[in-house]
C-alpha cells in the first residue's frame, strides 16, 4: 500500500511560490503582448489589402499548425543569438526571454482569431456610422469597433488565458523553473514526486477552475 508523504511540501513552499511567480509572469506577458499583437493581426487579416491579409493569415496558420513545445524550443535556440546581439546583455536569462517571446508569438495567433471573430460580430452599420462622422478607418476601429468587440470577447480572452496558464508548464523543456518545474524538482530531490505533482495539479485546478467560473459569470452578465 502506497503511503503519501506530504512532509516535504511546507518547506518547499517558498520555492513553489517563486515558481508560481515565474508562471504568472509568463502568463501575463504572453496575454498582454498576445492580445496586442493579436489585435494587429486581426485588423490586418480583415484589411482590404490582400497582401496584408495574406501575411496575417499565414502567421496565424503557421503558429496554429505547430506544437507549442517546438515553438518554445525554436525560440530558445533562435532568440539568444538575436537578443544578445541587440541588447548586449550577457547576464540576461535567455530562457526567460525565450519563453516570453515564444508564448507571446504563439498566443498572438490564437488571440488574433478570437479578436477577428469579435470584430466581425459588430454590425456593419457601426463602421459606416464611424466613417460617416469623418473618422478614419483607424479611428473607427480604435474608438468605435474595438471597445465594443473587446467587451464581447472578455470571456473568451479569459478562457484562452486559462489555457495559456496551464501551457506555461511546458517551459520545463528549456529548463526554466516555473511552478510545475519547481514542484517536479522538489519531488525528485525528496523522493516525493507523486505528492508534489498531486499538489501542483491541485493548485493548477483551483486557479483554472476559479478563472473559468469567472469567465462563465462574465459571459452571463455581458449577455444580459
Amino acid at each position, binding site marked *: 500500500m502506497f503511503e503519501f508523504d506530504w512532509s516535504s511540501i511546507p518547506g518547499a513552499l517558498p520555492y513553489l511560490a517563486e515558481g508560481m511567480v515565474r508562471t504568472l509572469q509568463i502568463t501575463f506577458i504572453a496575454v498582454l503582448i498576445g492580445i496586442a499583437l493579436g489585435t494587429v493581426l486581426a485588423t490586418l487579416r480583415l484589411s482590404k489589402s490582400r497582401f496584408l491579409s495574406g501575411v496575417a493569415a499565414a502567421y496565424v496558420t503557421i503558429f496554429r499548425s505547430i506544437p507549442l513545445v517546438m515553438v518554445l524550443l525554436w525560440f530558445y535556440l533562435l532568440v539568444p543569438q538575436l537578443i544578445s546581439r541587440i541588447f548586449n546583455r550577457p547576464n540576461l536569462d535567455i530562457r526567460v526571454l525565450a519563453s516570453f517571446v515564444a508564448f507571446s508569438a504563439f498566443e498572438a495567433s490564437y488571440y488574433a482569431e478570437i479578436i477577428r471573430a469579435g470584430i466581425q460580430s459588430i*454590425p456593419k452599420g457601426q463602421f459606416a456610422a464611424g466613417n460617416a462622422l*469623418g473618422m478614419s478607418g483607424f479611428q473607427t476601429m480604435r474608438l468605435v469597433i474595438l471597445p465594443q468587440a473587446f467587451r464581447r470577447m472578455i470571456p473568451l480572452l479569459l478562457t484562452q488565458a486559462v489555457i495559456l496558464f496551464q501551457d506555461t508548464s511546458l517551459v520545463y523543456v528549456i529548463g526554466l523553473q516555473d511552478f510545475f518545474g519547481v514542484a517536479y524538482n522538489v519531488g525528485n530531490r525528496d523522493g516525493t514526486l507523486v505528492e508534489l505533482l498531486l499538489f501542483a495539479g491541485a493548485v493548477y485546478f483551483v486557479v483554472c477552475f476559479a478563472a473559468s467560473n469567472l469567465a462563465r459569470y462574465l459571459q452571463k452578465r455581458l449577455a444580459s
Partner: protein
Amino acid sequence: MISIKGVSKWYGDFQVLRNCSAEIGKGEVVVICGPSGSGKSTLIKTINGLEAFQEGELVVDGTSLNKRGIDLAKLRSRVGMVFQHFELFPHLNVLRNLTISQCRVLGRGRKEAEENALKLLGMVGLEAYCRKFPAQLSGGQQQRVAIARALSMDPVAMLFDEPTSALDPEMIKEVLDVMVDLAKNGMTMVVVTHEMGFAKQVADRVIFMDHGSILEDKPKEEFFGSSGSERCQQFLSKILAH
C-alpha cells in the same frame, strides 16, 4: 451643393444604379422614394462615399468624388448622415456620442464640444438624457440623438437613409418634427423615406426611383399631381392607399 451626373454602379454583374443624375441646391430638401431594392439607399450612400460607384460624376460642395486619393474622411465630416438603425455607439453615453467625432475629427476641445452637444440635444428635446446610454432610450429618442450627432459636425448637408422605417408608429412623429424644423431652418437635406406627409410638408422636390433609375425628379406640387409616370402613380397609390 450636390451634383450627381450619370452615376452607375454594379455589384458584380448586377446593376444597382443606372445613369442617375440630380442636382441638389443649397438649402433644398429633396425626398427620394421608390420600392425597396430600387437603389435609393445606395444612391444616397454614394453621396458621402460610403458606397463607391463605377461610372459618372459626383461633386459635393465643390469636392469631386471622382478624383483619386480625395480625403473621403474630410468630405464625410462635412456631410451628416442619419441611418435607418440609428447606429449610435452603444458603449458611449449620449453626450460622448455627440462629442467623440467633434473632438477626434474636428479637434475641438472637450468643453466646446460638450457645449455644442448640449445645445443640439436641447434642440431635439433630449438634454436631460445626456448621461444615458443608447440602450436606455426608445427608438425615437435614439434617432433624435443620431440626428443631433450628425449635426454636431456642423454639416453643410444632411443625408437621411430611411430614418423612420425602423421606428414604432408612435415614435415617427417626434423624429419627423425634428427633421421638419431642420428643413425650415434652411438645411440642405436628401431624405430617403416613404413618409409622403413629410414630403408634402417640406420637400422642394421629390425623386422617384425604380430598378436603379431615377424615373421622376419633380417639384412636389407636380409630383403629387397626376402628371407622373404610370409606374410612379402605381407606387404612390399603394403607399397612399391608407
